């Protein structure tokens, strides 16, 4: 099947900086690809090229088989964009924003109004419809932003860090809305800094670092590469870190990453039940623990696994991860 989004050897430079250093990507229709990476990895630049806002310096990008440079006008009929910065006019109300976009898409006044009402109802914004969107909370505005990108019923939707800065429960609401869109058959490209978000929504995750794709696979594949969960231990006494590391290695068979700054040790585990075993072993060894937790792998750990080096500023004394 022909991919809905196809990126080949994409390069984008800004002066001396290379934001994208040869990116290849293919997304089948009706799927969600999560683009994961730290700030400055090139995620937003790629979305802007795909959404026809930036011209590539080299390589080709096709959306629905159409070239984003030569056929930009037709590509724009296929896509919707929810950028990192609010794409709604704060001076206009929710309904005015949506009607404006409908009118720009060629709808008659009445049709634009109907479409706006339909989207406002679907995104539970009817109550706020006539207030200026500048008075909306962050979550409301994001919902309106998402609704705004759907006025023209796009086949491909770009979501650039759609939940950055949102409360966890608002984030979950937004995830649900995205899931419903996918059920309607929309192809979604989602950039995020949160592994959990990509994990929740994406069929496939592409990991970016410094303008390159450093990892690609389904969430399960990626997680298997770094272990399903992470056990995190902070001994009450800093000098016990070595002893804790020994206990962890004995129980899990894997070397723990020691972060001397935060005084924490982390180790990826395949089976969440290992947490209980670690707790027991630490207790038997007489080591007092200040914190003991089981959590999902962080972006740090994905990076560590994929690139062999930490993505963020974290001091890894023993940086080997199975």
């Amino acid at each position, binding site marked *: 099947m022909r991919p809905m989004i196809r990126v080949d050897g994409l390069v984008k430079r800004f002066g001396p900086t290379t934001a994208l250093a040869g990116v290849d990507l293919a997304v089948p229709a009706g799927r969600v690809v999560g683009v994961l990476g730290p700030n400055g990895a090139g995620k937003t630049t790629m979305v802007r090229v795909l959404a026809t806002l930036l011209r590539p310096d080299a390589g080709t990008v096709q959306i629905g088989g159409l070239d984003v440079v030569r056929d930009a006008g037709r590509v724009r009929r296929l896509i919707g*964009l929810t950028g990192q910065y609010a*794409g709604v006019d704060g001076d206009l109300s929710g309904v005015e924003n949506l009607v404006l976009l409908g009118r720009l898409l060629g709808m008659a006044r009445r049709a634009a109004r109907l479409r706006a009402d339909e989207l406002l109802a679907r995104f539970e914004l009817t109550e706020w419809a006539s207030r200026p969107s500048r008075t909306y909370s962050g979550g409301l505005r994001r919902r309106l932003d998402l609704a705004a990108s759907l006025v*023209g019923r796009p086949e491909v939707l770009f979501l650039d860090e759609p939940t950055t800065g949102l409360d966890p429960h608002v984030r979950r609401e937004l995830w649900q809305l995205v899931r419903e869109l996918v059920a309607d058959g929309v192809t979604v490209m989602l950039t995020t800094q949160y592994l959990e978000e990509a994990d929740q929504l994406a069929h496939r995750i592409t990991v970016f670092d410094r303008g390159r794709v450093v990892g690609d696979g389904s969430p399960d594949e990626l997680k298997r590469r770094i272990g399903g969960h992470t056990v995190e231990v902070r001994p009450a006494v800093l000098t016990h870190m070595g002893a804790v590391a020994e206990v962890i290695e004995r129980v899990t068979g894997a070397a723990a990453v020691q972060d001397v700054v935060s005084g924490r040790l982390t180790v990826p585990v395949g089976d969440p039940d290992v947490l209980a075993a670690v707790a027991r072993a630490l207790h038997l060894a007489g080591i007092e623990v200040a914190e003991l937790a089981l959590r999902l792998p962080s972006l740090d750990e994905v990076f560590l696994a994929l690139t062999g080096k930490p993505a963020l500023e974290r001091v890894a004394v023993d940086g080997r991860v199975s």
Partner: protein
Amino acid sequence: MTAADHRPGGLVGALRDGCVLAGRGVRKIRRNPEHLVDVTVQPVLFLVVFGYLFGGAIAGSTGAYLQNLVPGLLAPSVLMATLSAGVGLNTDAGTGVFDRFRSMPIARSAPLTGVVLAAAVRYLIAVVVVLAVGAALGFRVRTGPVEVLAAAALLVAAGLCFCWVTVFLGMVLRHPDGVQGTAVALFMPLVFASSVFVPDATMPDWLRAWSAVNPVSLLTEVVRGLLNGGPVGGPLAGALAWLAGVLVVFFPLAIRAYHRRVQN
């Protein structure tokens, strides 16, 4: 099939998109009346300060001075109102709203057309406010409604030509403050070194020479002729030549700067 398939292309479509976005601009003006300070409070202040403070000294009496000052203030008020086009576009260009427009199947020129047309509404507001407040202070039109409409049309046309200067500045300068400051610095010599506030007979020769060819002076003479009665032909030719000149130079510059700014 998406709604976008029904839309007209070419010039008609571009104009339609521009008008829809101009509607957005007008709505924004209505939502934020404080953005109208430059076309309401400012001209009124000028009228009151110059009319009552300097009127006696310049023209012997406030009443006599106002009859010249009110039509005189129209051209400067419209000129200063063109700042909103450049500043507005500059402010818009950095926002997510602008990105959204650019990712949509609309004419590339539409956001620009929208800002320029919405600003024209402000020129009209400036004209109405100055004439209304002037009338309240004692100014009387000595001709008829046709002349008033002709004057308003000329002033709006002047605004539509001069706004390309501020649009150009808005697209080459990074910050709105820079656009505002540069445009004010450019326009001030036009506004004050003119026959708007004082008769140019008292000026030194070099200044009088400039005032005589200054577009604000020429526009002002035409407007005075139209509202107070008198010849308009001579200054009108000069004024139209200026408008054409500004348009020929700054329209292509502004368009090029706009495309460079939004393309990248």
